[in-house]
C-alpha cells in the first residue's frame, strides 16, 4: 500500500477547503454560517501536523483528532475530533488496514460522536450520514465485497442520509433552535462527512488501487 495516512489527510484537506463556502452556506441557512470555515481551519492545521513519516495509522489518527479538537471549536470540533481519536484507538500500531479494522474504527468513531453529542439517528446531524454509511459498508463487506465496493455502498447510503436530513426537524445542534423551520434543508455536518468519505474512497482508488 503506497498511500500514506498523510496523503489521505491531505486529500481530505483539499476537498474540505474547496467546499468551505458550500458548507458555510449550508450552515448559514439553519445554523450560524461557519461549518466550512471551522472544518477548513481544522484540516489546514492537521496537514501541518501530519507528515509522510507518520506510518502508525492509529497514532496518526489520534494526532489528527487532537488537532481537530484544539483548532475547530464549535460543535463539529469535539465531534470530529473524538471520532478520529476513537478510530485511531482501533488502529493502534497498524500500518495497513483491512475491512474488518475499518468497520471497527467506524463504529468506535460513531459511538464516540454519540457519547459526546448525546444525539442518535434521526436528529438531523452528521450521524444521519455516518451511521447508515457504516451499516452499508458492513453489509457489503459481509457479502464479500471489496473495500472499494464497500466504500461505494457507504457513499450511496450517506447521500441518502443527507436527503433524509432534509425531511426531518432538527432536535440536536444549532439547527434545533429553528424547530420546524429546519425542515427542508440539509445538515452541514452530514454533508461534510459525506465529502470526507468520498475523498477517502477516491484517494483509495487512485493511490492504493491505482485506478
Amino acid at each position: 500500500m503506497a498511500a500514506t495516512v498523510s496523503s489521505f489527510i491531505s486529500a481530505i484537506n483539499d476537498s474540505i477547503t474547496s467546499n468551505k463556502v458550500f458548507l458555510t452556506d449550508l450552515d448559514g441557512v439553519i445554523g450560524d454560517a461557519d461549518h466550512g470555515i471551522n472544518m477548513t481551519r481544522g484540516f489546514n492545521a492537521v496537514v501541518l501536523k501530519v507528515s509522510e513519516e507518520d506510518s502508525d495509522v492509529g497514532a496518526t489518527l489520534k494526532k489528527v483528532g487532537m488537532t481537530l479538537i484544539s483548532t475547530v471549536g464549535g460543535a463539529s470540533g469535539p465531534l470530529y475530533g473524538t471520532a478520529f481519536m476513537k478510530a485511531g484507538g482501533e488502529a493502534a500500531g497498524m500500518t495497513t488496514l483491512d475491512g474488518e479494522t475499518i468497520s471497527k474504527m467506524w463504529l468506535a468513531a460513531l459511538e464516540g460522536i454519540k457519547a459526546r453529542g448525546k444525539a442518535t439517528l434521526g436528529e438531523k446531524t452528521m450521524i444521519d450520514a455516518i451511521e447508515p454509511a457504516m451499516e452499508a459498508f458492513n453489509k457489503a463487506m459481509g457479502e464479500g465485497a471489496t473495500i472499494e465496493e464497500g466504500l461505494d455502498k457507504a457513499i450511496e447510503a450517506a447521500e441518502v442520509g443527507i436527503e433524509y436530513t432534509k425531511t426531518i426537524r432538527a432536535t440536536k445542534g444549532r439547527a434545533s433552535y429553528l424547530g420546524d423551520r429546519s425542515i427542508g434543508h440539509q445538515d452541514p455536518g452530514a454533508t461534510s462527512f459525506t465529502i470526507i468519505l468520498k475523498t477517502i474512497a477516491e484517494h483509495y482508488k487512485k493511490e492504493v488501487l491505482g485506478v
Partner: protein
Amino acid sequence: MKKIINNPDNVVDEMLKGIIAAHPSYVKRVEGFEVLVRANAPQPKVALVSGGGSGHEPSHGGFVGKGMLDGAVAGAVFTSPTPDQVYEAIKAVDGGKGVLLVVKNYTGDVMNFEMAAEMAAEEGITVEHVVVNDDVAVEDSTWTTGRRGIAGTVLIHKIAGAKAEAGGDLQEVKRVAEKVIANVKSMGMALTTCTVPAAGKPSFVLGDDEVEIGMGIHGEPGTHRETLRSANDTVDHLLGKVLEDLSLDKDDEVAVLVNGLGGTPIMELYVANLRVAEVLAEKGIRIAKTYVGNYMTSLDMAGFSVTVLKLDAELKDLLFAPADTPALVQN
C-alpha cells in the same frame, strides 16, 4: 464586506490585543491563547470563567474584572472555543477555591467547556459549570438541545461574580448562578443580517422592511420573519413572550436589560426601553435596575433583545454590588 479589520484570520487576536492596550489595568492575556484574565489574577476566591465564539463584544472579555469574570475565552468568530483554550483559562484563574464555568447553551460550547472541565479535573482543579438558556424564542424541551443562551448571560456574570467577590464558595456561587438562570428570560429580533469576517458576506438576507423575530446571537434564524412594526408593537411582542415565561406578580421586582446587537444606535434602544418600562408599570411590576446598551452583540447586526430577570432579595443585593470591568463599572 465593510469592516475595520486587517485580515479576517487575525481579527480575534488583534481585538484581544486592542482590549489589553486599552485596559491594561483590568486584563492581561494568557500568552499563546485567546484568553483574557484579570490583570491581577488569580484571586483568592472562586473564579468565574465564561466565553464562547467572538463577535459578541463586549462579551465576554469586557466583563473581566472585579465583581464579574476572572477569565474570558474567545473562540473564532461565532465558534465556541476549543477545550485547550478553556483549560488554560481555568488554570490561569484558579486560586484554589475552584472555578465556575458560565456556558451558553449551544452544543459546541457545552461540549468544549465540558471537555475542558474534564481536563482540569484530571489536574485536580475543582470545576463546576452552569448552562445559560434564557432565549424564550426557542421552544423549551428536554428532547432537544433546549433554549439558547443570549443576553441574559451578562446578568449571570454580574450576579454570580458578585457572589464570588463576596467570598461565596463554589457551591454557593453555582447556586446563585443557577437561580439567576432559572429567573432570567430574553428574546430578541434583528433588523439586519451580520457578516462573519471569515465568511466575507452576510450570514442571511432580509428584505427591505423585513425583520427576523426571535433571532439568535450568531445569526441563527428565529421564529419567523415579518414586516417591521413599530417599536412599541415589537417590544410588546418580545416582552410578552418573556413575561409569559416568568410568571410575575404585581409588586415583584425585576432587572431589565435592553441589549443592542451591535449595529443599532443607542437612541433606538432607549425608545424600546421606554415601552418596556411602560408595559411593566402597567402590570405593577417594579424595575429595580435597567441596563441599556451593547452588552451581548452579534457583530454588526442591527436589532435588540429584551431581558427580564425576576429578583429576590439575594439577587437584588448582588446585582447592586460594585463591579469594575472595562465594559461595566458600577459603584
